[in-house]
């Protein structure tokens, strides 16, 4: 504690079959510090955190808490509160229960009974600190992604640990919630807590953190005070040799007014939205902006036939279509890439090869018998085209990093040569360089004649990528903007319901 370091990792090494995830990495968190951990997908950030929280066992290296070496990380589990990137909640329990398990307030006389009144009261207090007005008695699977993420954060905060680790805590939340989270983190810091903050959103760093550590391909690149390094340098160091593109140049195709309309939606109503009407042309990229929970995902899922519609018509290439399931949607050339890739996108215990080849298996088969040669060459071409980093295509999908998984899903969806793609939060949780790659690929695709709808909560990205943006507010279309004509503030105003 002399040098004020509260948690330290030295020379950490961690290997998985075929890949060195961490190579002699050092990391030091000072007391009262908000310390950012940055890196591309696959750099090793999540692995390092998982070692610090006891999910993985390190192969070698040492960990120190307040200058004392820790032999078993389980000993310090209660000194560290962790908010994971993937949701780790109990969907059938209430918000209050999720926050307090396993340290529920107990009945004073009968210690085996839970004091529900106290639990709900305490939960309300924490929720209002985070400026969330949710009923703590609500069951978690009924609330949307943003609120679920806030519940996870509430849970970590309620543990009152001296060290708090947050892994991409704002990937699903909107601006307002981000601000209130930042305020809380600043308060916690002033109370003596130390915080590790993992994010891909570099803009957040300058607003919040004191120091930043950059990892790349499992190696430590360096640690800096945030004042001593600027964004461009950070990106350059994350990427290494490759040139980083913070501002991807995306030329816009202006004359798509003359292109034909491939998707027309009229007065579509369903779960959580009503009277949605819009059209999508060939080569057009249409953005769906809005706050998380506005209903955009529901609209997309209803068009795809995953959710039932209560009224409305859908026309594809000017023909009315009755789409009752993704199978039918696919037949009409319409494909949806879900937001939650782990839940709805990947087959975790199948290999990367099997994941990618799945939709096109018939094309690689004669009489339903798969040609392994064709499959291999197809998958290899996809991997190089989409820059997916993996040691072997036979690797189980669950061992890939989040970013690579996302890329694989996108690659798979594009490979079926759809005519219309609806992307739900395509770059959530993806590092800056991969984001630029993905948007570049989308633009290329649009040029070849596809119509693309991007649902995104990142207004700036929509403005750069989309030709037109529809803003959804509480299940209705609030405003439509031509890509150039909007500013992030105007988008936000529409998204929160102001004219």
């Amino acid at each position, binding site marked *: 504690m002399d040098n004020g370091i509260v948690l330290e990792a030295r020379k950490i090494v961690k290997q998985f079959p075929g890949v060195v995830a961490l190579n002699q990495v050092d990391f030091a968190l000072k007391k009262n510090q908000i310390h950012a951990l940055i890196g591309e997908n696959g750099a090793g950030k999540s692995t390092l955190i998982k070692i610090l929280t006891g999910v993985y066992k390190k192969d070698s290296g040492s960990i120190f808490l307040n200058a004392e070496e820790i032999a078993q990380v389980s000993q310090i589990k209660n000194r560290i509160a962790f908010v994971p990137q993937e949701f780790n909640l109990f969907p059938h329990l209430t918000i209050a229960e999720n926050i307090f398990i396993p340290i529920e307030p107990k009945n004073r006389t009968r210690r085996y009974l839970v004091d529900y009144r106290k639990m709900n009261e305490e939960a309300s207090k924490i929720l209002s600190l985070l400026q969330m007005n949710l009923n703590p008695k609500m069951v978690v699977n009924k609330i949307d992604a943003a609120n679920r993420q806030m519940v996870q954060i509430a849970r970590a905060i309620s543990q009152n640990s001296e060290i708090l680790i947050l892994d991409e805590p704002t990937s699903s939340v909107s601006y307002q919630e981000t601000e209130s989270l930042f305020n809380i983190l600043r308060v916690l810091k002033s109370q003596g807590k130390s915080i590790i903050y993992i994010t891909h959103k570099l803009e957040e760093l300058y607003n919040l953190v004191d120091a930043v550590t950059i990892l790349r391909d499992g190696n430590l690149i360096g640690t800096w005070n945030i004042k001593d390094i600027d964004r461009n340098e950070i990106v350059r160091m994350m990427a290494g040799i490759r040139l980083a593109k913070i501002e991807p140049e995306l030329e816009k195709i202006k004359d798509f007014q003359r292109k034909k309309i491939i998707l027309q939606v009229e007065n579509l109503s369903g779960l959580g939205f009503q009277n949605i009407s819009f059209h999508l042309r060939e080569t057009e990229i249409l953005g769906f902006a809005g706050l998380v929970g506005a209903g955009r995902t529901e609209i997309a899922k209803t068009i795809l036939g995953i959710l039932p519609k209560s009224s409305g018509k859908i026309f594809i290439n000017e023909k009315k279509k009755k789409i009752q399931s*993704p199978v039918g949607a696919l037949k009409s050339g319409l494909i949806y890439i879900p937001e939650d890739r782990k*839940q709805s996108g*990947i*087959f975790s215990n199948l290999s990367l090869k*099997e994941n990618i080849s799945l939709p096109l298996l018939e094309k690689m088969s004669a009489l*339903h018998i798969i040609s392994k040669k064709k499959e291999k060459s197809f998958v290899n071409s996809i991997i190089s085209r989409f820059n997916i980093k993996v040691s072997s295509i036979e690797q189980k999908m669950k061992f890939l990093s989040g970013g690579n998984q996302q890329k694989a899903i996108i690659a798979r969806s594009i490979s079926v040569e759809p005519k219309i793609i609806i992307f739900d939060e395509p770059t959530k949780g993806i590092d800056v360089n991969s984001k630029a790659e993905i948007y570049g690929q989308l633009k290329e695709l649009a040029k070849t004649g596809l119509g693309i709808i991007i649902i995104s909560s990142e207004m700036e990205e929509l403005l750069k990528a989309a030709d037109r943006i529809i803003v959804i507010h509480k299940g209705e279309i609030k405003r439509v903007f031509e890509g150039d004509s909007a500013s992030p503030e105007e988008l936000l105003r529409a998204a929160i319901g102001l004219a």
Partner: protein
Amino acid sequence: MPSNINMQGKGLKELVRTAFSKKIAGVLSALIAITIFSSILSPHFLTSYNITIIIRELAFIGIVTLGQTMVLLTGEIDLSVGAVAGFCSVMAGKLMVELNVSPLLSIILALILGSLCGLVNGLLVTKLKLNALVVTLGTMGVYSGLNLVITKGKSITDIPAHIYFLGQGMLLEIPFPLYIMLAILIVLTFTAYNTTYGRHLYATGSNIEAAEIVGLRVDAIKIGAFIISSLLATIAGILMIARLGSAQPAIGQAWLLPSIAAAVIGGTALTGGEGMPLGSILGAAIIGVIENTIILLGVSPYWQTVVSGTVVVAAVSIDSMRRMIAGKK
């Protein structure tokens, strides 16, 4: 037909490939260990007579287990396998003996009946979105009940002798049913690893939501698995009536639990998406060896299920612990 031979060849190659995979190594070593242990416990174990008995029993359970494996791979379960085996084989017996239908035709009709039973299971589970555990528990009652209705509890004897070879025959000193089991094993291994249907099967069991979004017809895939399961159970039942020379209503009753246990021992995940046909057969072999050894040792019949049950729990626990150690990453 040349293409058929080619498929069998590829299936065989695939079988050999899976035989050398890491997952099989675990089950295989367990089997070898138990075999060695048994031969130490009883001098009669390693006799050709005893081994023949083990192999013949293995053939029946193996076929049923292979069918169960297909259903488990999709993330469902089929509790009606024993009942279907009994019901359809008894129907075959009735047709052959009492209605004087030719044995060949009776068998074919029984196979069709078995497939229909599977179709019913599949439709109830997929279209009505009912829980497979509950549905097949119910259909198990229906099919075994129909079995008793037809037989009134009495065996149908005098099955025509010229089909006896299916159950009792030997080819190169090996019981004929084993060849049927091996043929099915090769076909299913080929299906699992080389066909689109096989791939779809694993995908459906691995993540059904993702499978739907990618455009797989998960209902048809599951129904297919249920049909395969009931069909294979029927095949096992018919081989059994050929072996016994009579259609006994009790056929299949003892096949349900081993079919699930063998699949799990062999690496099939009850949650779906993981498993290998060869693994399931090795699992069935382990169970077969254990049950045989119990009998050889003269253990009281009342203790037999206690012992075999304990061994199953132990085997699954060892597998689970192995996963935990390996996955403690």
